[in-house]
């Protein structure tokens, strides 16, 4: 079922963890194992915003870490531009590292508390061998790109708001000139008013840079609004996939139905702005007031 030619593919990915038992049992290899990701295959098109939905603990964060290669899968292949990433040569490894970046959920721990914002971005650029005046120029344009004032470069992370920190996290990822951006619950730690701004920013980056985005969330409403493709994950498996409209209005899997039913439709503001109405699914432009808020 996995296509041979694809931009980014996961083929039958499996990740197991040994349950923590006694030392002896672990050494003998007799400890029971649990699969956090249980045979996931996905194909992601270039330039797509791919949504991965599921409740907490379903293995979507583990899958995110496998996609960016922070952890290695127990079994299965990650294929990027037709090449198995586990078999890349050292030089290609580096290219892959830079090409696939990540935005984290917890904005508090995603930035080193000791480093001013300028240093965070300068170090990212230095990893790509961009230094000096070229780096200065690129830092300025990165800040502009994510909608932050250059004044903030002098600040420490704790002097920024959660939304600003998340924008810095996105700028740091963009500094690597990535092709794929994995956003693991990028808005769940933010106020509802900020969530829309960050999601719009990701959507803009997708449109302007052709950046492929893998958006991971437990919130169907957020994912439905911007994604071109979505997959629903439950207990380490993909239970349903397709276009957002199809998955939301004609769910075939009982778990997906349950997930859809759990979205609070009754909240008027929410359903109008981020809810499951047809306008939201079509990815309609954000309301004016959000644009306004993003500017300050």
């Amino acid at each position, binding site marked *: 079922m996995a296509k041979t030619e694809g931009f980014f593919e996961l083929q039958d990915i499996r990740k197991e963890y040994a349950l923590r038992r006694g030392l002896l049992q672990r050494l003998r290899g007799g400890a029971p194992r649990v699969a956090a990701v249980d045979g996931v295959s996905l194909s992601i098109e270039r330039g797509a915003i791919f949504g991965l939905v599921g409740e907490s603990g379903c293995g979507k964060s583990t899958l995110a870490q496998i996609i*960016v290669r922070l952890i290695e899968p127990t079994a299965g292949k990650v294929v990027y531009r037709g090449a198995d990433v586990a078999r890349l040569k050292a030089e290609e490894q580096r290219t892959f*590292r830079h090409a696939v970046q990540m935005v984290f959920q917890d904005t508090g*721990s*995603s930035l*080193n508390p000791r480093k001013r914002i300028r240093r965070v971005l300068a170090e990212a650029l230095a990893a790509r061998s961009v230094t000096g005046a070229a780096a200065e120029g690129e830092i300025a344009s990165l800040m502009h790109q994510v909608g932050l004032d250059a004044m903030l470069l002098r600040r*420490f992370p*704790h002097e920024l708001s959660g939304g600003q920190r998340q924008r810095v996290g996105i700028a740091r990822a963009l500094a*690597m000139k990535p092709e794929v951006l994995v956003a693991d619950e990028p808005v769940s730690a933010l106020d509802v008013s900020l969530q829309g701004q960050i999601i719009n920013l990701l959507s803009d980056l997708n449109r302007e840079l052709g950046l492929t985005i893998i958006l991971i969330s437990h919130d169907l409403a957020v994912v439905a609004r911007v994604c071109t493709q979505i997959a629903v994950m439950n207990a380490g498996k993909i239970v349903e996939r397709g276009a957002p409209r199809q998955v939301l209005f004609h769910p075939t899997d009982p778990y997906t139905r349950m997930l859809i039913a759990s979205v609070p439709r009754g909240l008027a503001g929410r359903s109008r702005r981020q809810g499951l109405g047809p306008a939201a699914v079509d990815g309609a432009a954000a309301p004016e007031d959000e644009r306004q808020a993003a500017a300050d």
Partner: protein
Amino acid sequence: MNRLRRLVHFFGGPAGFAGGCIAGLLLLSSIFAPLVAPYDPLAVNILDKLLEPDETHWMGTDQSGRDVLSRVIWGSRASLAVAGFAVVIGVTFGVAIGLFATWVRGGWLEQAIMRVLEAVSSIPLLIWAIALVGIFGVRDVQWGPLTISSELKLMVLLGLLYIPTLARLTYISALAEVASNYVAARRLQGVGELRILFSDVLPNCLSPVIVQATLMLAIGIIVEAAVSFVGLGVQPPTPSWGNMLSNGRNYLISGEWWLSVFPGAAISLTVVAFNLLGDGLRDRFDPRHSTTMGYAT
């Protein structure tokens, strides 16, 4: 005024500043002891023995007629040197071992290192001290061109015994930092694990280490006093606060209080000064206490 304020900020607040001032004065007086001390600390004058503090001998004299003030000033050299070098040894190797254990985490080597550290720290200091004296004796040991004095033995022993605590402290904070997202982001930039350890993880682990190091400096001074009983550390007639204190103990009942009170006060002052300094420095090096505008109060 503004310069003073910035100096106070450098020490992390008024308390840290006070600690820094006292510690600085102590250091200066021990370095310039020959100039500061009014008498020769070793000059015996039996006629003037056990004099109460007065205007000629501000802290009185001991059973051999030696000036207590001069001995307190000279004694700071031995006490601060033993405690200071022990902390330097402990911090250097402790932090290095803690980071190394973090680097090899997940393997048998990590487990081996941590278990050995626990084994070492489970034996009390006095037992080690007695064992060391049992092996090397009380007198100086000639080892090739090196003379290993009793003080040096104690310095190294104390330093070695400080290592497990500092190593574990570093290791525990480093493990927490290594799991954080900013470290993950550095990995995604293709930065090597060792470089991440030194440039990102280490600076974030140092605050608890600094606090612990200042406490250990204080402990070192007291321990130096405790183990001189078994023949380690500074031996008479060379003065140290520790051996002055243990000498003064013999005269407490007979009423010569100045023999123990003044070295005791010197120890307390030093301990308080270094603790204040350590607390101040911890605040100073925590970026959450500082802003781009200045330092938060």
